[in-house]
């Protein structure tokens, strides 16, 4: 898993960032390869829209690679990147505020013909996606950061610039809502 791979080698990443900031092209490429898919998935989970997620990821990554000299190494790189990405997602949401809220279901490209298990998995994924989409944005973003991006509570507080207590409350509430939403659907 990419996220864990990075977290396991924080020193490697710090060196990589320093080299990239100095303009080393291979370091910049490596950073782009590591982070572009993550930011894309992060944006896809928050926005539920493939094209928007691609644009946000491209925009955010180009901006990040262009402003590495402004990165403060005393902060974690991941929280810096997610803070920028999250703000870009909020801007994107604002921009399309009048567009009917993008359906998360059905946005995945090519639901190819699949065996029974894959149909089952896809239906389960649709239900999870519907539940996630039904959450208020402030709950969705903390859940996405915690469960998908594997950020810790303290890191989420830093990325969102929120007090730790607020982050924990939101995560607990978000979890409870998810449980309720998914539990309801299980009921006959």
């Amino acid at each position, binding site marked *: 898993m990419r996220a864990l791979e990075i977290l396991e080698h924080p020193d490697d990443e710090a060196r990589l960032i320093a080299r990239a900031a100095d303009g080393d092209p291979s370091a910049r490429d490596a950073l782009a390869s590591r982070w572009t898919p993550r930011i894309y998935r992060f944006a896809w989970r928050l926005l539920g829209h493939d094209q928007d997620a691609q644009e946000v990821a491209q925009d955010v*990554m180009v901006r990040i690679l262009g402003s590495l000299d402004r990165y403060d190494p005393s902060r974690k790189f991941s929280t810096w990147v997610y803070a920028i990405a999250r703000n870009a997602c909020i801007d994107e949401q604002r921009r399309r505020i009048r567009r009917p809220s993008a359906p998360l279901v059905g946005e995945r490209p090519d639901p190819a013909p699949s065996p029974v298990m894959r149909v089952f998995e896809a239906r389960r994924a649709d239900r999870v996606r519907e539940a996630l989409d039904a959450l208020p944005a402030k709950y969705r973003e903390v859940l996405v950061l915690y469960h998908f991006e594997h950020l810790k509570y303290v890191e989420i507080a830093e990325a969102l610039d929120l007090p730790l207590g607020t982050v924990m409350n939101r995560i607990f509430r978000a979890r409870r809502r998810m449980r309720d939403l998914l539990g309801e659907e299980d009921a006959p």
Partner: protein
Amino acid sequence: MSRCPSRGTLDAFADGQLGDHEAAQVATHLDHCPMCEGYLRQLDPLDDVLAALDAPEPPPDLLAAVRAGRRPRRRLALRIGMAAIGFALVSAGISSAASDPAIAAWVRLALVLLDDVTARPVVLRAAVGGVLIVSTAALALAARRLAPVRRGALP
């Protein structure tokens, strides 16, 4: 909190049962203790549930574009277009809105429309932008012709 909290405390934390102060202590501990962090994550049933939600793979040209340092085309076109339209609106507004409430209202409406079309496809945005520029310019021109006396009367 430098020593690991008890399992009971971690379980209570996972259930949101701890008070604010103690919960913050645990969360701070989790920031640098992979063991407790890992314990809580494997305990969390939502982790398995959410694992079903796989995001699609990003298209390969996305990474190529990032490596080449290209900003998204739609965004760039949008920014240039919006700047042009904004400039047209502002200059129309300055030249005539002050003396003509109808044009002031039109400029406001146009700005709202502009905000709306930023989410639409490129062709539609270009079309609406073009219509807005032309109509604002025409209005401004008409206002200038119709109200020379009013404008002259202003200090």
